[in-house]
Every structure is written in C-alpha cells, then in structure tokens.
C-alpha cells in the first residue's frame, strides 16, 4: 500500500466529495474548506498530476461551455484503485486516531 502525502489525501477526498464537478478550481476551494488555506495552483497541480500518473484518477476534458467563457476544462474522477486507496486511507486514519480524545483546554 502506497503511503500518500497529506496533500494527496486531501486531493483524493476533495475529488470524492465534488463528484462530477472536480476540476482544479473547485478542488482548490474544497481544500480551503478543509484547511482554511488557499494553496497555489502549482502546488495543487503537481500532486494532482502525479496521482493521475499513478492511475488513481481518470481525467476527461469537457468541451467549451459558454458559461465558463469558452475554455475546455479537464475534470478528474476517482478510478477503482483510487477508491480502494481512499478506503485504505480511511482504515489507516481510524487506526491512527482510535482512542484519541480531545483534551479539555483551560484558558
């Protein structure tokens, strides 16, 4: 089982949640939702492309849509192995976080 970086994990999850709407800009927005921080296009694209290269993601290009201003858009979706990877990740995370209790901070 491959070890994913945090960024890769976030991207896979973002795509999972976005379903049909997963392309670079919404992915970025989604990650902002998770982390509260905008990452630059470059730092998203590189791992995204890598995941695509490993075969966890499929990509297809949608023809220009007038509302998008006439540019083709590359959409990503999870492949079978992508979903399997997510499942494995979930297991891992559960394992890691099991028994963790948020300590009560006192100011």
């Amino acid at each position, binding site marked *: 089982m491959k070890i994913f970086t945090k960024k890769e994990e976030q991207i896979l999850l973002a795509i999972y949640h976005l379903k049909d709407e997963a392309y670079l800009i919404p992915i970025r927005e989604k990650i902002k939702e998770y982390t509260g921080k905008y990452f630059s*296009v*470059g730092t998203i694209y590189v791992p995204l492309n890598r995941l695509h290269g490993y075969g966890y993601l499929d990509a297809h290009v949608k023809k220009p849509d007038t509302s998008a201003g006439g540019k083709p858009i590359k959409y990503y979706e999870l492949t079978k192995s992508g979903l399997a990877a997510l499942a494995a990740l979930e297991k891992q995370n559960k394992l890691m976080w099991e028994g963790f209790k948020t300590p009560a901070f006192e100011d």
Partner: protein
Amino acid sequence: MKKAQARIPGLASWLLRYVLPKQDYVYLNGNFADMYTYRAQAEGRFKAGIWIWGEIIKSLPGFMYASLYWRITMFKNYFIITLRNIRKHTLHSIINIVGLSIGMAVCLLIFLWVQDEFGYDRFHVNKDDISQVYSEMLYTGGDSQINMGSYYPLAKVLKEECPEVREAVRYESASGLLLSYGEKQFTNDAVGLADPAFFDIFSFPFAQGNPSTALTENYSIVLSEKMAKKYFGNDDPIGKTITLLNDFDLQVTGVMQDLPTQSSFQFDCVMPYALKFAPNFKEPEHWGGNPLNTYILMHKDIDRPPLEQKITAIVEKHAQWETAKVTFHLHSLTKKHLYSPHGGGLIQTLLIFFAIALFVLLIACINFMNLSTAKATTRAKEVGVRKVIGARKIDLIRQFIGESLMISFITLVIAVFLMAAFLPSFNELLGKQLSLRLLLTPVVVLGFLGIALFTGAFAGAYPALYLSAFQPGSTIKGLIRSGSKSSLRKILVVVQFSLTIIMIISTVVLFRQMGFVMSKDLGFDRENLVVVQMSQQMQERFEPFRNDLLNNPQIRGVTRSLQGPWNIGSTVSAVDWDGKPPDESVSMHWDYVGYDYFTTFGMEIIKGRAFSKDYSTDQKEAFIVNEEAVKMMGMQSPVGKRLSVFRNEGQIIGVVKNFLFQPLYHEVKPFVFMLRPFSGSLGFVRIRPENISGTLDYTTNTMKKFDPTSQADLLFFNDVLTNYIYTTERQARKIAGYFTLLALLISSLGLFGLAAFMAERRTKEIGIRKVVGASIKEVVFMLSRDFTKWVLLSNIIAWPVAYFVMKKLLERYAYRTHIGLEIFVLSGLAALLIALLTVSYQAIKAARANPADSLRYE
C-alpha cells in the same frame, strides 16, 4: 448568466505559457483565466492583476519542480558519477586533464592570435572599396615580377580618367627625418607622406582638426596624439609649427587619435605628399618605378577585374613604355594584412599554426579516447545496471558525452589560466600586444566555448558509442574483456605518434633551414659588419664622418649605399648594351653605393677594378655588374663595354663575383652597381672581431658627434636578417619547437597511461610468468614489445608525410638545406626512445612486483 471573459494581462499570460507544463497547458491556462475573470468582476481589474501575479509566482516552484525534477535528479547523478570517476582514477584523470588543457591552451592562444590578425584594417568605414594598385611586369623570357611600388602620376591620372575611382592617393613612408619644435628635436618619428584625400579614403579618427582639409596646404602636418604630446606637452598643438629638416616650417592642422594596433599603416604623423617636391612643387611627370604606393577608393559595387584592365589600358596610353609589358592589379585593403600579392602571406603562417594547434589538441583527444575505452571494464557494470533499470542507448550516449563535456569545460577553465600565463611570452615571440581583455569580446568567448564543445564532443563521441553498446547480460556477468583486442586503440596510438614524429621532423628541418640561411656563403663576409641608419646630418657630412670612424684602428672599412644587400627588390628595365636584341625586355637589380663598398663588404672583383677616387668619370659613367648580368648580356670580355642604365651612358669597369642580395627565396639575378658617393642613408662599418663593444661605443659616440639627436641603434648585419628579413622563420621555428615539445609530452603521457593500464590488466599473467621462471628483463621486453611495434609503424607512416610537408615548406627557398635520411632516422629514434622510457617505467614496476601479491586471490 453569461460572463464576459476577461483577458489575463499580456506579460502574465506570456509567463504562464513558459511555466505551465506542455501537456496540460490549455486547461491550466483556462483555469487561471477563469479565476482571473472571477476576481476581475468581484474586485476590479487592478486587484485581479496583482492577484494573478501573486498566484503565478507562488505556483512557479511547483511547476518548475515538476518539469525539472527528473532531469535534475539524473543530472545530479551523472555529475556525481563523473566526479567520482575523476577521483577514483587519479592517474588517468591527471593525464587527461593535463593533456587536454595543454592542447586547449595552445588552441586558445592560436585562436586569439588568428582573430587578432583577421581584425586588421577593419575600422575603415570604406574598407570594402579601398584597394592598393600594384603592377606586374612581364619579361620576354616568361618571367614576371610583381611590384608594389607605383608611379608618381598614377593617382592623378586614375582620379581624372577612371569614373569608377572616387579618390586616389599616393602614400609613402619615411623614417629618420629630423623634426623639431624649438629645443625639441627628434628623428625617430615614423612619417607618412600622403595626398590630401588620404583621410577621406581612410578613416583615421581625428581628435582635433578637419580630416578632409588637413593636408590641403603644402606646408602642413597631422600629428598623432602621442607625438603631439611629445612635442607640445599639454599645449594646444593646432596652428603651431614643426620644422622639417631645419628647412620647412609645417603647420599642425590636425591631431589624430593614436592609431589602433590593428592597422597596416603605422605612422606618428602625416605630411602632404607634395612636400617631396618642395620648394618649387614641380610634380615629376615620368613613369618610372618608385617606392610609393597608390591607393584608390572605388564607388560601391565595382567589379575589380574589368577595372584592372581599364587601368592597364589607361597607363599604357600615358606611359608608353618600350621595354616591358606591364599589367595593373588591385589588392583590396581587407586582404592587405593577410594576403601578399606575391602569393602566400601571413595567412599561410596562420593556417599552418592553426593546423599544428589542432594537431596538439587532437593528440590530447586521442589520449582521452584511449584511456576511456581502455578503462571501459570499470564502467561496464555501471552501463549494465543502467540498461537493466531502463536506460536507452541514447541516454547512455548522452551521459558519456555529457561526462566528456564536463571534463572539457573543467579543462577549459584550466586552459584559460594556462593561456593567460603563457600570453606574455607568446606576445614577445610574435611582437604583438594580445591582451587578456580580448577574453571579454563575444567572438573570443564564443570561440573558446566552441573549442571546448568541440573537444568534449570529439573526444567523448567514440567512448560514448563504445561504452553504450555493451550488452547488459554479459557486462553484469563480467564477460567483457576489454583492453587487448581493440584495434582502433592501436590505430589511434599510431596516429598520435605519427603526428608527433611529423612535428619533430618538421621542427628539425625548420631549425636546419634557418641555420643554413644564417651560415650560407652570401658572396661577402657577413660577420662583424655593422649597419648604421644615418640621419640627414651624417649623410651630408659623410666624408668627415667616415674619416672619424676610420681613425679607430678597430674599424677596417666604412661605406654607404642606398639599399641594403639583404633585400634589394628594385629593378631597372631601362638597360641597353651593344648587341642587345631590340625586342628583348630585361631587368636588372641595382644599387647606388659609395667608395670602398666592395672592400668593406669583402666582395670579390673578378675582372676589372672597383670604383676609385682616381677616376673622376666613375661617378657618372662607370658600372660594375655581377657575373649573372654578364651571362645575361652574353659578353665574352665585359670590361670596357658600353652599358646604359636609366638612360645614363657609360661603360663596365668591373665584374663582381655573384653575391646574394635578397632573402634566400630568390636566386641570384643580374645586378648593376653605380657610384653615388654623396647619397644613400645606409652606412656599413666593418669592424675587427676584437673588443667589439668598445668599437660599437666608439661608433655610437661618433654618430652623436655628428648628430646630437641621433637615437639610431646599431645593428649587425646578421641581426638585420633575423629581426627584419626572416622574422616569420624565427617565430615559426620557435613556436613549432614549443608546440612539438608539448605534443611529445602529451603523447608520452597518453602512452604512460596506456602502459599503466596494460600492466595492471596483465598483473596475474606477469605473476604466473615469473613463477614459472621469466626474468624481469623478459617481462619488461614483453610489455614494451607492443608499444615498440606501434611507434615503429608510426615512423613508417610519418616519414613520407613529413618529407612531403617539408618539400612544400621549403619550396619557397631557392637555396635550401639538404633533407637527409638522418633527420628522419634520428627523429624517429628520439620518439621511440621517449616512448620506451615512458613505457619501461611502468613495465619495470610491473615486472618487479612480487608474484605472491599478484597471484593471491582476495
């Protein structure tokens, strides 16, 4: 809802084009555009512009990293491997780097020199349209003579009658003229005499004054800044007067910036040509040859050959020569420095040395190739592993070429330092001022990088192909037995040694020829003969000057002449004698000489008598000719026969034994002496071989007595020959000598490396041989045998080539040294000896090793 698409600002979208990965450019660009549009609508274009720049800059590392990551990783790997190999095989690396950097430094030096020589006279604005007019005389025998000297009326006639010619000027250089300003008197300024249009044709930049009108007044002079400073200090020179020969007052009308070194013309000042005919300024009309040059400026895009014919026709009409047929030719200014109308010229020397430098580099490259392929076994496993992992052949070729390029760039750095270290002595050798500042000019930088690239690619190509062809299966199993069977390596060693031997033989022959030139019997005694360049004062009071000199018992004879018998090129074709065939055109070389000329020089009068003060008619009507002239005229008893030269009637009073009055490129030709005891600026002093420096001091003091401003140096006749006549030979000999030594050094280094490798590879064999009973001598012999064979083979190849090259090089000499077999044999033996010495060091080391050490396994 339809959104209006906003465009990303120009520069930003250009930047995106470069940084975005190619395969996804369209989509990523679209994404950026969308975000920009959104921002622009929400916050305005300006803020969106700033934002997009921020985004792009933040994205840069990511994108760059993605595209460069693998390349950098591989490059880092190659780099480390190269450095490790350099460190691991220290001996080989040192041999390679030393050899290559010497070879490259030699190439760099020659490149600097060549590019300097090619830059001559390029600063003239009209350089492409300027030509020198010269003539060629054709004699009945089929001989012809090229004459750079021109005619007084030629420039004027060409300007008036040739529409193609925009301007035409005469130019003549002079030296030793006395120029004075008040107390300041000098005779050592190089003077140019030129017609007024000179500065219209040639673009010598002026610091002060108007170039077009500077020479229009007859009594004017244009100074260089250096000369102006010498005479006037910091005063404004314009309008001041400089006195020429205590007689003519010349007004300074312009100051030139100091001449660039890359100029064929070298002078400190220029005066109007008309001054030659002062004070009455009557221009000579006759068409007799003179030591002046004619330059023309043509209109744009004029073809030279038709113009040459036209000039020939025009001159024929004016001059109406009866004697010889003369044709005119144009020598363009851009060729003046490199090409000689006589054929050859500097360009030949440059080509030869460029070739030699390339040879040296080639020899160093061969070392590199041989050592890399010999060491291939050590890399074979690496190649195998790389191939198994997935490297294609092209990747490996790229890796190995890259490696040799890296080494060649390392050597370039060393070579530049080497070159900088040798530049001063190289400059001194050539009498040039090549400066390291040239290293900053683009041509030179490109040239140097080119040389490094060439070296790396050339030296690396063969090893790269050789290494990349290994089969991974066999290399990993260790089946590659590289080393002994490579016939190409033998060929390369043979090539290397052939080149070296050719260079050795050529250098030896060059030295021999120069020795021959300096010891050849010229027909007079050249030892202990001092040449004095006499100033005006000495010339005018020559008799007292001569008597003063003769007061010293160490001085045996003093005489004078117009020309020096090291290179008398001027000829006269207006020669007539009784019985001369009417349609025959001939020429004789000639000189005006003083009394005692023949006794001072030690020339032998074989018939008749020398010039004598006892006969007053000698000054007008007497000629002394050489044997060759007698032969040409076909006289049985020449003494007393009528002869007319320059239309002066007289008779032959003596015949002098043939002597050589030109460099040894030319054979003896007919010669006629005329007596002119009151002219001629060259003095000759014959001194006794004892106490030479005292005699020279005495001579200098006597010169000072007659001319207090005299700064002339005394020169021995032989020094004149080496310094002024055989300069190219002198330089060529030295450079060839050094380069040959370097070539020998580099090829021996290569051999040393190869021998070390061979010995190492055969360690076990040697051990077994020794155990079985071979003696050290036998082992050394066995190891050296191959190399001996190669060097002997090189000799066989090199000898005919060297013979041919030498024949070609000595072709220009009419008198040449004998190229005997012993030169070849000795050079070959020398090469063999050095090769054996190199090899035997390794062989002995290997042979003396303890077999127990070499045979023990682990």
